[in-house]
């Protein structure tokens, strides 16, 4: 039987607020356990939450960016469950009245087509702490530094049809929240995590099959792998005539399998009810408009601009706008050198090759955007050749120097563009190559063009590669043709 895959994603993104969603503690990552947990985060008796206005602004900003309905009255609810890293015994979240309602994003699929995927909702909630299962005298440790970090949970409609589409959607969300500056997007630190709901149904059937939820997948690659592994597992069961159990599963990247979490967790009744310690969050059009007016250029808009105004191809514009880091780097290079096309060639060529080869993230590129831009500017003003540019780039990459102009000098890459100096070299070369001059003169005029190459080579050699090739060509032609 032919099966259709149905996927919906729930993405948790930590908001980059300075303090937590309901307390004044810092949200900085990596501090000693429990040093960034206030009375509120520890859930001591008597403490009360106060909602952080910065988290509200960020969530509304996200809603505006995906063209969603914004909840003018949103309500926090308590989701009750016991777990050691959930200090209050409930999580404060939004069930029936989320801050962000229905919206959508467009994702580019592998074949270059665009697909619109609807977002059901996005709500605000608090992150939990972490259980540390190293041995503490036979007990587990609890670190509540992360407890109370604001999250938005972005829930997609079940409109995704393959693991690759899921990754494209996740990447696009990653790009949007990082463009907005509301999330640092650092997947390795858990700043964004993804729950994947997967089900299969016979092609053509309208009704959904039973789904499973793969929890807490934390990289683009794992999302693709986890979903594919789960699709295979479900297909095998269904084709053997079995049925799928609705449950929560975990992805094990080492064993390349998903496996069931304890069924008890699935059977939890969370007993949601409105949190009586927090008032409904009421916002008006004016507030939403003020936030909307602060929206930066988003990935789709940037791509369009790079094509329409800066003359880049669709492919280049797509690559260069895909992530905030790439886009920021590229824009800085383009600004510094003033030539978008040349900047695009260098960023997508030499730089990307070096980054890939050395497995370095663009965020920590050894060659800064300013350096690369400055170097390209020297190509544009003819100070160095493209070839010389590659040498400067290599030197910058290897940290042989910081300053482009100093490197050009020390590497002796400055092109000779002084016509007198070039003429002198050309005269020398012509004088020393009587045989080749003879051949040139006696050749058919339309074959002479090719023969200039030899002389150019000699001139470049004599100038140790510093002669401006354009000028060399021009002067050589003039002088040789004068002999004909």
């Amino acid at each position, binding site marked *: 039987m032919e099966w259709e895959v149905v996927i919906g994603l729930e993405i948790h993104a930590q908001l980059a607020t300075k303090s937590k969603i309901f307390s004044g503690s810092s949200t900085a990552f990596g501090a000693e356990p429990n040093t960034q947990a206030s009375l509120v985060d520890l859930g001591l008796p*008597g403490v009360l939450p106060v909602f952080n206005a910065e988290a509200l602004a960020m969530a509304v900003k996200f809603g505006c960016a995906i063209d969603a309905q914004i909840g003018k009255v949103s309500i926090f609810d308590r989701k009750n469950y016991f777990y050691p890293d959930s200090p209050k015994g409930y999580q404060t979240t939004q069930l029936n009245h989320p801050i962000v309602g229905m919206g959508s994003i467009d994702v580019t699929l592998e074949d270059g087509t665009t697909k619109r995927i609807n977002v059901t909702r996005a709500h605000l909630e608090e992150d939990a702490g972490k259980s540390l299962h190293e041995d503490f005298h036979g007990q587990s440790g609890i670190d509540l530094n992360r407890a109370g970090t604001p999250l938005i949970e972005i829930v997609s409609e079940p409109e995704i049809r393959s693991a690759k589409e899921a990754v494209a959607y996740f990447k696009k969300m990653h790009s949007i929240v990082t463009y907005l500056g509301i999330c640092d997007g650092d997947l390795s630190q858990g700043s964004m995590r993804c729950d994947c709901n997967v089900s299969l149904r016979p092609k053509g059937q309208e009704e959904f099959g039973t789904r499973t939820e793969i929890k807490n997948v934390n990289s683009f690659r794992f999302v693709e792998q986890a979903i594919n592994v789960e699709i295979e597992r479900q297909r095998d069961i269904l084709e053997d005539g079995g049925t799928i159990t609705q449950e929560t599963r975990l992805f094990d990247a080492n064993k390349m399998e998903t496996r069931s979490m304890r069924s008890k967790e699935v059977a939890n009744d969370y007993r949601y009810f409105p949190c009586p310690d927090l008032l409904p969050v009421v916002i008006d059009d004016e507030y939403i408009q003020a936030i909307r007016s602060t929206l930066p250029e988003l990935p789709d808009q940037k791509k369009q601009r790079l094509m329409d105004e800066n003359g880049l191809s669709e492919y280049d514009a797509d690559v260069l706008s895909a992530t905030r880091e790439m886009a920021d780097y590229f824009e800085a290079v383009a600004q510094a050198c003033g030539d978008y096309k040349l900047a695009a060639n260098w960023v997508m060529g030499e730089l990307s090759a070096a980054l890939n080869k050395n497995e370095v993230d663009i965020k920590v590129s050894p060659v800064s955007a300013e350096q690369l831009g400055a170097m390209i500017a020297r190509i544009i003003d003819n100070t160095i050749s493209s070839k010389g540019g590659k040498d400067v780039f290599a030197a910058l990459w290897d940290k042989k120097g910081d300053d482009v102009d100093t490197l050009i000098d020390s590497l002796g890459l400055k092109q000779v563009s002084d016509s007198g100096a070039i003429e002198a070299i050309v005269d020398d070369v012509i004088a020393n190559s009587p045989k080749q001059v003879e051949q040139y003169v006696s050749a058919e005029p339309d074959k002479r063009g090719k023969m200039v190459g030899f002389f150019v080579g000699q001139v470049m050699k004599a100038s140790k590669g510093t002669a401006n090739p354009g000028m060399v060509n021009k002067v050589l032609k003039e002088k040789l043709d004068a002999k004909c």
Partner: protein
Amino acid sequence: MALHNLTLTQISKGLEAGNFTSVEITQHFLDRIKQLDQGDNGLNSFITVTQDQALADAKAADERRSAGNATSWTGVPFAHKDIFCTDGVLTTCGSKMLGNFVPPYDATVVENMKREGAVCLGKTNMDEFAMGSSNESSFFGPVKNPWNKETIPGGSSGGSAAAVAARLVPAATGTDTGGSIRQPSALCGLTGLKPTYGRCSRWGMIAYASSLDQAGPMARTAEDAAMMLNVMASFDTKDSTSIEQDVPDYTATLNDDIAGKVIGLPKEFFPESLNGEMKQTMMSAIAEFEKLGCTVKEISLPSTDLAIPAYYVVAPAECSANLSRMDGVRFGYRCEDPKDVEDLYKRSRGEGFGDEVKRRIMIGTYALSTGFYDAYYVKAQKIRRLIKNDFVKAFQEVDFIMGPVTPSPAFKIGEKSGDPVEMYMEDKFTLSCNLAGLPGMSIPAGQINGLPVGLQIMGDYWSEAAMLNAAHKFQQATDFHNAAPQGIE
């Protein structure tokens, strides 16, 4: 007059006049606590007495007075209900669960009192997590009513009530979720006020039912209650449900004329079944208000009967979540040698909570469960709106609503402890104030069988000053508030 018979206001004035020092009066009350509260025959109104700290604070207060920057509260002794977190001082909430809990911070109400230089003598006994109407659910044992040691003092602020009635302190803080200030005030012959929801900060006040809990003063007179509310009340950015509303000087308007005020008597508060003596006592107290120029009008609050069922859904639902943090993980009671985390939760909570707390957690858990939520919680919230609407309508016609606080005077220790529903009926006249968020007050209105009973005064939102004014005028004209239990001299 013996120092302990002075009212809060008189003590404040006496300190100001230099009649005695804070250290002297603090020592006097500490001696009384030792003598009357402790031991088998004691009232058991205190869980913790902070003798050393109190004397140090009293000394500091005397110094502050010498330095010339004393306020009316500087050096005045009082006590906190053990529901308020006190930095460095054991705060149990009447529970074994918090039997070892020493908070690292002060509740806002505690901070407000400290700022004035008031001298806290200790933490008073209470029903466990404020769940109870008799103070019998305290892990630290029942409190005796100083009017008759065989009877209960009311609850949940029973320790505060007994301590003030026995002149162990001139005043104490209380909290009121369904009547926990007014009912013990009534049964111990005190003046107690539950303010409008949002008037006093809930920061640091251990939550029972967050949408109903409110702190307030328990004292002997309306004048004293006004002096206390002046300091307890504040807008607090740490409590999102605190309301930004100026705190007036509640003592400034105590003597305003109340002639012409209209008193509403809801027929639902005077049912056929009401104890005849209670009805008579109430009516003669109300007649005093008529003598002061008030007029009386019969009104109806038709949803009154729904208050008990609504309350016993909303309060348990909220408490079932509020008490989840008592899990044995980060503070409080932890069972011995837990096998795993599941066992840790089950036994810590099973061993740490008393029966009434468990009962309410279970009721609340049930009411919030899938399939029951709409039938219970949502319906109870609708009832709350009906109750509130009744009052809003009534206050378009009347200035105050009056009636009994309790159906009867204090009952015997053990009399109702086996029958929770009977116990819940104790709150039938007090619950609707909390459900509506309105201020309510109890003032001494006479005695039945030698035991005090209280008249309840309810006012519109933010009308505490007017209520205290009316109560004060009543107390100027009557003597009920001066009655004292025997054997406390």
